[in-house]
């Protein structure tokens, strides 16, 4: 079977003996390899290829060469020109969804750019490849300002989940799309992430949050059963913690719909905010609780009789006075329906 990689290598062999030697002798230095790259075609003529009759991909059919403020006079050179130097990048890129759509659109309408859709017109860069900024780059050393990078991505990806990017905490902290995404290859199974998963990508900056998921009780994020993006929209939302819904509770109800109620008898802090009692990223207590029971409850409950006693280890099963208010589930052994009760006899969440 002939793989695309092998076919690509054959193409290179035909175009340049030097490059073929490069492939055959990988031990050569990169400087050697670079010297053997084919000469550049700066005419841009291959952009004017004849329109084909193949059905184009509608979404990508609107792709246009993005404007690069740092090279306003640059002209498109076409993908072939880019590949003459960036063959290996193209090998990796060609299996991504971006490449699939752009190539299909380009086949249908040769005026649809491929590389230059995102990187801008390439002529200035081709003539002076060492000058930073002549091509729109998405890396630290590219010389392209962050806002130009994000604007470039948003020229196609504006709206929808990214509707509230402007003003979001990630935008205000000067993050670029390419801090989280790397569309040049399939590094993740989905989402063109910069790391192997959404969670690994978020952990680049939020390691302190990621390690909280290693605690005794946690949601199944380390196990790969969910991702940060199940609760948060990193592209911005109507909430400052980038929640995907209007409130904390509505976010939790997405998976815990049984807690939504409304119940016949409500527990005020529960309805107000799940985070009053739960630490969503992990806890050393059972069930993500912020503090051990009964002390979690005793932050608010000072009512007369049984709620306001100070327990010591003598109240444990191994102590002299075992007490149900602290053993096992503690308060919740009796006040089991603590999230709200639909029982007419449940105002204290006993039923």
């Amino acid at each position, binding site marked *: 079977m002939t793989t695309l990689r092998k076919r690509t290598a054959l193409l290179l062999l035909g175009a340049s003996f030097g490059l073929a030697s490069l492939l055959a002798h990988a031990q050569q230095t990169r400087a050697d390899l670079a010297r053997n790259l084919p000469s550049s075609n700066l005419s841009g003529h291959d952009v004017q290829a004849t329109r084909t009759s193949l059905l184009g991909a509608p979404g990508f059919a609107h792709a246009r060469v993005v404007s690069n403020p740092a090279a306003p006079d640059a002209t498109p050179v076409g993908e072939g020109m880019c590949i003459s130097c960036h063959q290996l990048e193209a090998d*990796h890129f060609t299996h991504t969804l971006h490449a699939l759509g752009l190539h299909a659109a380009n086949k249908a309408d040769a005026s649809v750019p491929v590389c230059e859709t995102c990187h801008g017109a390439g002529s200035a860069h081709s003539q002076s490849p060492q000058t930073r900024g002549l091509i729109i780059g998405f890396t630290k050393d590219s010389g392209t300002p962050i806002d130009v990078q994000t604007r470039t991505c948003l020229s196609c990806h504006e709206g929808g989940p990214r509707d509230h990017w402007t003003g979001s905490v990630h935008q205000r902290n000067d993050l670029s799309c390419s801090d989280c995404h790397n569309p040049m290859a399939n590094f993740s199974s989905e989402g063109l992430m910069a790391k192997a998963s959404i969670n690994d990508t978020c952990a680049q900056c939020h*390691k302190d949050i990621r390690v909280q998921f290693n605690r005794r009780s946690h949601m199944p994020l380390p196990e790969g059963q969910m991702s940060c993006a199940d609760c948060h929209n990193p592209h911005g939302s109507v909430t400052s913690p980038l929640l995907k819904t209007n409130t904390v509770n509505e976010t939790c109800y997405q998976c815990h719909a049984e807690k939504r109620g409304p119940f016949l008898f409500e527990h005020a802090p529960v309805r107000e905010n799940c985070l009053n009692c739960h630490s969503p990223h992990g806890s050393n207590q059972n069930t993500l609780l912020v503090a051990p029971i009964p002390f979690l409850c005793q932050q608010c409950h000072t009512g007369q009789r049984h709620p306001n006693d100070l327990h010591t280890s003598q*109240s444990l099963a191994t102590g002299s006075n075992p007490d149900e208010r602290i053993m096992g589930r503690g308060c919740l052994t009796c006040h089991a329906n603590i999230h709200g009760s639909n029982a007419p006899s449940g105002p204290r969440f006993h039923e």
Partner: protein
Amino acid sequence: MHTQRRSTLLCTLPLALALATVLNAQADSGIGVDTWRANKLDPSAGAQGRMTDEFGTSWLIGGQRRSPTGNLYMCPAQPPQLDHFGDWIGYGVLEAGAVGTSGDDRNALWNRYADWDSGLILGLLDYTWQRPDDGSYANVRASRISEDDQYYQAVFGRAGAFKIQAFIRDQPNLVSSNAKPIWNGVGSDQLTLPTALTPGGSTVADVAAVSAATPERTLSVKRSKQGIGFDLNLPMRWSVYANLADEQRKGARPYGGPFFFNYPFPNNGGVLETTKPIDDHTLAINLGVRHVATQWRMDFSYSGSFYRDRYTRYTYQTPFALWAVVPGSASAPLTTGQMAMEPDNDYHNIKAAFTYKLPLNGELSLTASAGRMSQDDRLIAPIDCNGVFGIGLGGNLNPGPANPFLFRCSDWNTPAALSRRTADMRIDTSLLDARISLQPLDGISVRGGLRFNRDDYRNGYLAYNPLTGDYGYIAENGSQGSIVPGEVGLFNPVTAPSNITRVRSLPLDLQTIDANLGADWKLDNKNTLGATFAFNRYEPTHRERRRIDDNSLKLTWVNRSLDWLTLRANYTWKKSNGDPYEFDPYEFTYSIDLPGYVPPAGGTPSHTVEAMRKYDMSSRDGHKIDVMATIMPREDMTLSASLRGDWNSYDAPIGRQDYQTSSATLQWDWQPRDGTNLSAYAAWDRSHLRLSNVQDQQAGAGVDPRLGGPNYALIGQWWLRDSQRDVYAGATLDHRIGRVRIDANWNYTRARGMDRYNYAGPTALAYPALAPGAGPGGGAFPAMTYRVDSISVGVTIPLADRFALRVFDYYERGRVSDWHYSGFDTARVIDHRVYTDGGPTRYNANLVGVMLRVAL
């Protein structure tokens, strides 16, 4: 089973299916869950297993480039080997083999979200088809660890045009591996005692013997979910999407079961840790239309969620007899308790968002949203009993005027005893959000936002029995009133006019207004300064405060002046206060508020202490810092460090007084060459929570709510400090020697929680007689600890062009100590307390696997 609700669902399902067929959707970063499907065998869903390209990323430069922040990108995987099917190309991987577990492989912590099942497994099937001519593609991905831990998904689409996605997923959630439920019928809505026990008539010894003889078993809840999703790009830059998912949960988990206190009444009451059946499903729908034009963006969406529980309640039998504390009286025999399940509920939300591009590089965005949460579940009867409940004076269990503390079950064990038959509860929500951003000068942007949110409760519930004229409820399955006369939970203006009990539901209407104003100033391409002032007005009803104002000022600095450093620093000042704190706003929900209420002879007892400040309602001062540094000491190396702190001080003589969290992390990544990655991290965090409470001194009859008064005397005050310290560390190696790949991973977590207390005097204690002296004192609980070490080592050996063999071993060791469960390893029945769950336990477990990887 809720017939009415289920029929509603059946009506909804075809509608949703029809919509989903016409429209298109998938969960994305803006809507819904299900953004990721993987498992513990490979949380990356296949990405980590790919062999990296030996040639690296580029012919022009070696090594990897960095993201704008400075993190090293990964080395790309080898381009796939392609098969051709006419116009289509295909590539993929199949990884299958066998795994085996050993050691404590039934342990709940080991199996929490991973159902390891020794035997053959499908590690990964991932195959992609692409048609380059028109951008069409399809993908299937699947993994099966066991029957409870598996996923299958299929995607078909055309790049930039449409995408259709379907998935099936089973997720395990093992909550206990050492449960010893004494009941039959675990997982059902009827928990019955075994024949060796007599409901309402067993001795502690009988129950203890049954518990001891009950083999340990697992309790788990399995989530099974199916979903389809579509999205479709339309002409004129419109797009539509829809998705539909249905999730079933099935299993059982430890829960409660009260038959009144045991601690003040030895050989009496009943504190039963039962098992709650989980058998429900939720249908979730998201659909919407979006438009992106040069000047306008629009987004219209609908979200719906419909929860259905198989059961309305579950019942359980109590093994113990109750006895009345009044000498000579008799307690009615009670055998059955009940627990209401969560009601079936419906949720609808519609949202419209408009964004208009303004001059000066600006945007104006308006979002309006309206939602409804409602349920109208059939209500269960106040009690499940036959005959009588309560206390028969003089040993006489015949109800009548001479027996004021004895009640006929027939007056209460029927829905006719309720003021209405169904719950009919509803919350309407509304949201308006407006935000604007402008860039009046090059490098300077200003932004502002205004947000208005309301939750409106519709309807309320009055606990009134038209059969008897009583208000209130039956406390703890009738047990409380069968032990203590007059504490059944009822108020009657004629027969019990001084009883204080809950008679109304608590509507929690809420309104919030958020406003923020901020500016960012790009000094140059290297420095950005930002400031944001935010104001939040929180106006709850029927809470301790009618208004709480949160103010915050956040300062941001992003610095890239040094080529080897990206620094992000944020500081936030926070202050919260509000109108006067009312310590008892709930009076209207009690019989105190009903006509005919007569205060007891000593006066109406105070609900709580006046000095209490609930932490969600109290005034608060706070500071928060957040510093992140990405350091690039060499071309192939990155150091990432972060410091975070959040310090909150509450104005609360009683209640939460301080809550502080802080953390530090350091991560090192090294990619010395393509195909070799090393990384290591260390992290540390801690939290301190300080609270105070006060023991009442007048046996529940105190009328003076003042802290320092006779009831809440200062001698009864106590303080607790909960401290949590966590240390995390880990290292990863991914190295290729020739064509052989070696990967290793080590993770370490150590958590230690301490609870230290002080008290003003012995009367603060639950058991004052145990105090070592008459004055103030203090002490600590045993440390609550959790420590897990895990290490995995794997070797991938190519066998032929398309075949590779992976051999791996994963070992995990866990040590855990939770004082809540101290002593449960020896006995689960402690007087009239019956515990099912034995709590978390230590484990050593190992997983070894051999997988054949085939490039398809």
